[in-house]
Structure formats: C-alpha cells, structure tokens
C-alpha cells in the first residue's frame, strides 16, 4: 500500500461527491482542453505528458503516456517532450542564480 494506487485514477469521481457542480465543470474543462483544436490531439497529449512529468503526478503520467501512444507518438518523441519540460524546470531554478549574484554584489565590496 502506498499513497499512490493505480485504482485511484478510476475513482477520480469520488472528489465530486461533496461538490458535484464544481467537479462536472472541472471535467468538462479538462476534457475540452484535450479535444482537437488549433493543436492536434497528439500535440496536446505530448504537452500533457511533459507537464505530468514536471509536476510529478503519477496518475497524469499514466494517462498521458497512454494518450500519447494512442495518438501515434513514440518513445523518442515522448522523451524529447519530457526533456524539454525538465530542462525548463531546471532552467527555472538556475536562472534564480542571478538573484544570488545580485544579493552577493549588493553586500560585497
């Protein structure tokens, strides 16, 4: 038993029990975001996977790995998407090094 169980994903609707209207609105929004639009379903699935890895959500990683494969992506493409998202996350940390420089320069002679 761990905090994250695969079955939990299939019990997502439990979070709607005490606020059904909010849950329905969320689901409608969530599903509409994944429909084909200016971006293809494949592009959206890759974005979803990249975000899922970045926010480290195991449910989302399962779901968007599936939808990436089912929209025709392969592991090379999925890996590039995951690297880009991870690199942005790493870069977002590293850019704060400039603030350390600023702080250093302010208090140093």
């Amino acid at each position, binding site marked *: 038993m761990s905090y994250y169980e695969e079955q939990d994903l299939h019990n997502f609707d439990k979070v709607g*029990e005490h606020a059904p209207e909010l849950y329905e609105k969320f689901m409608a929004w969530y599903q509409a975001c994944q429909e084909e639009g200016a971006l293809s379903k*494949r592009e959206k699935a890759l974005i979803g996977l990249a975000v899922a890895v970045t926010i480290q959500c195991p449910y989302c990683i399962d779901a968007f790995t599936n939808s990436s*494969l089912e*929209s025709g992506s392969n592991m090379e493409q999925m890996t590039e998407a995951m690297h880009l998202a991870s690199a942005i996350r790493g870069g977002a940390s590293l850019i704060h090094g400039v603030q350390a420089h600023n702080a250093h320069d302010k208090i140093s002679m």
Partner: protein
Amino acid sequence: MTKNPLIQIQRRNGKPALPDSRVSFDEHLKMQDLDLRASKIEILQLNVGKLCNQACKHCHVDASPTRTEIIGRETIDHCLEVMRKHSIPTLDITGGAPELIPDFRYLVTEAKNSGALVMVRHNLTVMFEENQKDLPDFFAENAVEVVSSLPYFQEQQTDAQRGSGVFEKSVEALKHLNAVGYGVEQGLVLNLVYNPVGAFLPPEQASIEADFRRELRKRYGIEFNNLFTITNMPIARFLDWLRSSGNEQSYMNRLVNSFNPATVEGLMCRNTLSVDWLGNLYDCDFNQMLEIPVNVSNAQHISEFDVRELEGRRIATNSHCFGCTAGSGSSCGGAVG
C-alpha cells in the same frame, strides 16, 4: 494456448458511486438498440492454416513454424466452387503464412482465373524462405492485393512484436515489392497494417498513415498505398501476454469504455465469411480461433454452403468483439468508424 471465450469484461459506466457491472457484448448492443447481422457475402476470408515462419507475440492464430495444420486441395476446391457459383467478388487469403502452403499458388491462380480479386495477408519475411524469392513477380502476375503487417516504422517496436531481425527483412521485402511496381503502379496495391505494440488502442488511421508514408519514404525510399490500423484482439497469444504483463483488466476496460456504436454498421463480420483450413465456417478469423461457429443450423461447412441461411444470420459475439468496436473500430481493412 489460452482459450476462454466465456470471459466477460467488467464495465464501468462512468457515473459516480455505481459498482462495476458485467455486461456482455450482446447486451451492450441491445442497450444501444443495435442488431448485428450478416449482410451479403462479399469477401470469403480463407485461413489456410497455422504454419508460419514467424511467431509474433500478438498473433491471434498462435501461428508458428512448428504448427502443422494446413489446408488440403479438396477444401480449396470447395471454396473456389462456392466463390464461382455465388459470384463472391473477393478472396482474402490469410494464415499463418499462406505462401508456405503447398497449394497456395494453385489457390491464387484459380481464384484469379475465375475473376475474383485476390488479397494475400503477406508477412514480408516469408519472401526469404526457400523457393519464395519470386513471390513479388508471382503476386504481380496475378495482380494480388498485398496486405502486410508492419507494426511500426522503427526497428525496436517491430522486432519487439514480430521477432528479432523482422524489421530489417521487412524493409528489404518492401523494396522488392516496390521494385516490381507494388505501391507505385496502378493495379498493384500494397497496403500496410499497423497494430499497437502493446496494450493500447491504435492512433487515428490517417494520422499514423501520414507518419508511415513520410518516414518510410525518407529513411528507405519505400512507397505503399494505404495503411490500415488494427486493434489487438484479446485472445490467444496476445491475451497470454496481457495476463502475464498484468494488463488484462485495464485493456479490457479500455476496449469496453471505448465502445463506439458508429462502428457496428461497418464491422467486417457483416460482409465476410471466414473459412478455416478444414472448411468450417465462422463469422470472422477471431471467432475461428475461439471455435465459435456461425449461428446457422445446416451450413457450418463450406461443402454445405447455403447462401439463404448465411446471409442475414445473427453474428456470434463474445467479449473479444469489443476489440472491433473500440474507438475508430477495427477490421482487416482498418478503421471502420
């Protein structure tokens, strides 16, 4: 071999706080007010046996080089007679690897001479077996429509499903077919078949076809006509893999939850009659492997063929049928919905 045609699939209807329920494919059709019956027989799909030079991980036939079940001349002649007598326009030859059957070329030429369109489900690598080198020329001489499985345009995925070295040989075989005009000249049709390398549904057919066309042309200079997407059926060797990999329940749920009523009208069982190497009749190649016969009382063998009984018959279904109705649907001719 795993055969469990009575397996039922747990279905979750998506509403909160409702328990999982067990709904058969037939009950599912009824809930949608759908009736699955055969129409006019337009394709005779003849499975000439289980002998194959490959042993693919997803094979619903359990075909392999060690299988000995192959069709005899008498059954072939029965099939040819039925096709001529009832003007069935298309013969779809499958296996195993049909080319390894001693009477394969007799079957093709006789069917062609009687005016039928002949399709052969050709696994590509059989071209490199003994006495098969001239297959592309033989196919071209008889204007055979070639349908070949290539699960992906990359080696890793293809070999993972079809065996080590299969991708490289398949590419060579496709080049040979292109060289005699297949996929290039009018009248020499080369169609490819994509099926997922794992427990997931195929992508949208036009989208993955465009990927295959671009990548096969760029990497190998290969041309083809169409790409068909086919869903892996949860029977035989693929079901064994689903079970051993812990994917059975989630895959079954995926199929059931993706049921698309729009696919039912175009299902291949409606206009195809499947015949096994012994001459027994089935609604499709999957029912054949599960030994689920046609729902008629007197015409269960090709020698008893009775068009009045067979056309309009109720299709025999079971849980594997969810594989043909999931998403965009699946048939030997690709997506249907």
